[in-house]
């Protein structure tokens, strides 16, 4: 378990971390999610000891490590740009921490071979980092960090420099690895999809503050505020309220729409809008709309619904939210 208590860090008079308090449960895979410049890296690097706090404390596994050097924190750190030791072979890279600790040669060999097998770099022992792909380099960096049996594994946008396909593969792989190794892991990312995909807990950061902490479902379904809502998944602004595009229902008949809307507590009401475009995205269909007020928003419906509605561009429809702030009362199924 990692506890960050009242962490503060300023650059000049700019607060990169503004009184951050956060508990990261042992064995969890927690994502630090937030826009660029929100302080994610600063928080992660403070946990690692690569950055000094101006105030507050860091406790790792019950030990206060606030003033402790990175060497002695029992951490593994993975950098966005790999930080591979370029003049060393893959084997020597992975063995580095163990060599420093003067472990017996046989033990180092065994451990390095095991790790390279786990990260799928068997047979790459004698290559140099320059002879690896980005994804392979990052897996090497991960093996290197894991070699010293860290208490916690800290990853700063580890897949940020890779292309979309490799990213998706590697994060699945990271998830499986975590399920096997169970080391407390903190992953920094600005990609909400990545966070929702791999993490079992997400902490959303904004301007050096924690906005909300919770499991992915809670954050998605019950965001604490507009920022969290719009940062996790797309949103549409429907009469002043933020609504997920798939929580918007469309109707041709105003009376029917009003009747349905009346059953949703605290809903923003029925909005008249003109269909601007109908976009088919495989199974889903996105309908771009323009309200009377001129604001544009999009609704997302299934293909079957779209076919049933048979909307054409230029037509007027009535949009309403299918969930409201009091949604839990109306749809008991959602409250579980």
């Amino acid at each position: 378990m990692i506890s960050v208590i009242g962490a503060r860090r300023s650059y000049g008079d700019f607060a990169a971390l503004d009184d951050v308090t956060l508990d990261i449960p042992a064995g969890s895979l927690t994502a630090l999610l937030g826009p660029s410049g929100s302080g994610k890296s600063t928080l992660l690097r403070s946990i690692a000891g690569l950055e000094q706090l101006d105030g507050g404390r860091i406790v790792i596994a019950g030990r206060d490590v606030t003033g402790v050097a990175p060497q002695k924190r029992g951490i593994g750190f993975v950098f966005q740009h790999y930080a591979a030791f370029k003049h060393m072979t893959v084997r020597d890279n992975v063995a580095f921490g163990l060599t420093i600790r003067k472990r017996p040669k046989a033990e180092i060999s065994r451990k390095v071979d095991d790790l390279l097998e786990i990260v799928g770099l068997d047979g790459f022992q004698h290559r140099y980092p320059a002879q690896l792909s980005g994804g392979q380099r990052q897996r090497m960096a991960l093996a290197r960090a894991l070699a010293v049996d860290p208490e916690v594994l800290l990853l700063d946008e580890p897949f940020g420099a890779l292309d979309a396909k490799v990213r998706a593969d590697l994060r699945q792989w990271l998830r499986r690895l975590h399920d096997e190794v169970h080391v407390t892991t903190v992953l920094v990312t600005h990609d909400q999809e990545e966070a929702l995909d791999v993490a079992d807990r997400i902490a959303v950061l904004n301007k050096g503050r924690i906005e909300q902490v919770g499991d992915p479902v809670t954050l998605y379904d019950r965001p604490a505020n507009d920022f969290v809502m719009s940062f996790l998944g797309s949103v549409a602004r429907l009469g002043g309220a933020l609504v997920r595009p798939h929580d918007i229902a469309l109707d041709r008949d105003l009376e029917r729409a009003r009747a349905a809307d009346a059953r949703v507590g605290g809903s923003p009401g029925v909005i008249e809008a003109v269909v601007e475009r109908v976009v088919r995205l495989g199974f889903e269909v996105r309908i771009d709309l323009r309200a009377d007020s001129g604001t544009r928003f999009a609704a997302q419906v299934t293909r079957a619904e779209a076919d049933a509605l048979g909307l054409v561009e230029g037509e007027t429809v009535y949009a309403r939210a299918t969930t409201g702030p009091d949604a839990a009362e109306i749809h008991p199924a959602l409250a579980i």
Partner: protein
Amino acid sequence: MKTSTTARIGLRTVALGYLVLLIAVPIVLILWRTFGEGVGAFVDSIRTPAAISALNLSLLIVAIVVPLNVVFGVGTALALVRGRFRGRGLVQAVVDLPFAVSPIVVGVSLILLWGVDGWFGGLERLGIKVIFGLPGMVIATLFVTLPFVVREVEPVLHEIGTEQEQAASTLGASTWQTFWRITLPAIRWGLTYGVVLTIARALGEFGAVIMVSSGFPGVSQTLTLLVHSRYIDDHNTYGAYAAATLLMGLAVLTLLGMTALDRKRSKT
């Protein structure tokens, strides 16, 4: 746009002619004069006690200057790239000063500082001879070769950044271990070039050294001073050519060493 063939050939001829006239002709001339009288005469001329002493002195100065420049050069480069201290701009300018200042000025100012009447003149009275002794020549050579290691290592340090070092520290390496295992191997090529340039310049330095050397043949003459004194004082032009050829041979060896290292580098 395509340059016509004639223009291209013309350009090449001009460039080549320029190089030949400026560099190749003088060198070939000296070689021709040196070996025109047979290899035996050359060997005799560089085996006189004065010549052997000059060679030894030049190599001794190189042997003292190179390690000092490596240690202080790497230290200065690290401070300039990684350090956040006031007066960094000043240090940057000071490092370049030896490039800008004429060696003869260096010699004069060293006499002012270390000579009998200088600030540190007391040393002389204690029997430690700086000016007109080996220390003076070493200090003069240190001065003129100061920028090479710093300026070769600095960009490499910039390029490698600090992430590898941070990674090493998270893996448990102390500052010292990180320096030996990560930083030094990463800058080794920059350092090598810096050393090669330092050697070449230390061997060839004349203006600063002549000011602070007593210039006795067989005692305090470096190879460059030997060439000079043979030519000017002894009117031994042949001896001057032979010594110059020896000096050039050393420079060529240094360059060959660098080329060999370069080959090795492109392979790894």
